Structures are given as structure tokens and as C-alpha cells.
């Protein structure tokens, strides 16, 4: 397996939606290709950092205000 082929499968690999045979081939590639290992590992970290980042949390006061506005308009319909 070449690096380009590895990258094509990276998303499926990280999402765990891959057949056993392809998974074994990818992990065989990862065992000797340091660059792909780093790309795979840091891509995984990228996803985890964003997932846990709590960017753009809705503040409680704004949340209450928006919900009241939505519900009062729904009641008016």
C-alpha cells in the first residue's frame, strides 16, 4: 500500500467503517510509515480537539431570550 492509498482510506479508518482486510493492510502500512502514522495520529487529535473544544457555546441568558422569542411567536401562530 502506498501513502496516497492510505490517505484515501483515512476517513473510513478513523470512523471505524472498514473491512478487516483493509484495516489490516492500513495497520501494516502504519507500522513502517512514520509520516502516515503521524498524519493519522494528528488527524485523530484534530477531530478530538474540535469535538471537545466547546466553541460557540450558547450562553444561558441568550438561550433563555431566544427560546422565549421563539415560543411566543409559535403561540401567536
Amino acid at each position: 500500500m502506498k501513502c496516497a492509498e492510505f490517505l484515501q482510506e483515512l476517513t473510513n479508518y478513523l470512523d471505524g467503517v472498514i473491512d478487516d482486510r483493509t484495516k489490516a493492510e492500513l495497520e501494516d502500512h502504519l507500522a513502517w510509515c512514520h509520516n502516515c502514522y503521524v498524519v493519522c495520529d494528528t488527524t485523530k487529535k484534530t477531530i478530538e480537539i474540535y469535538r471537545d473544544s466547546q466553541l460557540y457555546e450558547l450562553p444561558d441568558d441568550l438561550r433563555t431570550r431566544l427560546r422565549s422569542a421563539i415560543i411566543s411567536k409559535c403561540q401567536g401562530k
Partner: protein
Amino acid sequence: MSAIQPKVGEPPVSDELKLVQAAKAGDVAAFEELVRRYDRNVFRIAQHITQNREDAEDVVQDAFLKAYGNLNQFQGQSKFYTWLVRIAVNEALMKLRRRRPERMVSLDEDVKTEEDSLPREVADWSPNPEQQYSQAELRDILTRTIQGLPASFRTVFVLRDVEGLSTEETAEALDLSIPAVKSRLLRARLQLRERLSRYFQKRESADGRPKHESGDGTQ
């Protein structure tokens, strides 16, 4: 290396259809419960797409009101949340187009960028890179980095990886094919990784040379 663990704390869906049925029959309290469940998600998605706080607030209101007004069109074939996200994404894109009329914004565009090729310089990251920065600095880095992505990549990444929608749900919410979602997701992930490397890669040692050699990523 293991696959990414699914996000915990997903809202319950078992009683959701009952809430939707009640809301369809005019029960505003049932609809309020649906708002409570998903307003934070809709706000995050809207702000990621519009990159503007006021627009995101408008999108939350407009999306829920549109959903309420069109509940009869919701057939229950998909999850209510997926249906709602579809409405919210469309509202957010309209805001974005209005604010940036000079730039065509479309989820259909299959953006080709120079970063699409294989990663060239592969520098490993520090063990806990996010801990090198304060919360505020980290938030700033993450925000600026994701804002640099084309809207079509950013939206797919946010729905799949931040909000935890499946590939199929993302395709449905964005009206894209599954291969298109997968292709955008791969490129979004790789571009974000590459851009974050500027902040997170291992620090150089005292003699000014990188501790880890970076090389050509191709064979």
C-alpha cells in the same frame, strides 16, 4: 491506533416522535422541549457557517420558527434533528450569501485547493498540544483555523465531527451524495490538521533543529 470514539451525551430520540406529534397538534410546550434539546446545536452550526454571532442568533430563531410552521411536512422518515439541521443550514447559508454577495457560497462547489495533495511536511505534535495554550488562546486558534476552510468543507466537518451526525445524516442534511460528504470530510480533516500543526508541532530543541525530522510524505 483505534477509531474515534463516538460522542457521548447524544440527546434521547425515543420519545422524540411523540413530542413532534404533540407539537403538530398544536402543543407548544412539546415544541419548546424540542427547542430545548437542540437550540445549542443549531446555534453552534449556525455560527460555524455564518461566522457571525448576530446572524447565528437569527438563524436559531428563524430555523425553529420555520420548523414549527412546517411540522406537517416532517414525515418521520428521518430524525427530527436531521430535518431541523437541514433547515438551519439553509438559513445560515442564506445569511452568509447576504453578507458576502461578492462570493458565491455553495455547498455544491467541490473546491480544489493546493492543500489537497499529500501532506508534504509531516511534523509530529507535542503529546498534549492543546495544553500549551490558555483556554482563550486555544479557542482563538481553533476558531481562526476552521474559519479559514471553504464553507462547504467547514459545514461537513462541523456536522460530522463536532455535532456527531452520521455520514448518511450529513448527506441528507446537506443534500449531498455520500461520496461527496466523505471526500469533503477527508479534505477538511487533513487541511485542519495541517493548519493546526503550525501551533501544535513539537518545539525545536536548543540547537534550533527540529527534534523530529520532517520529510517528504510520499513514496
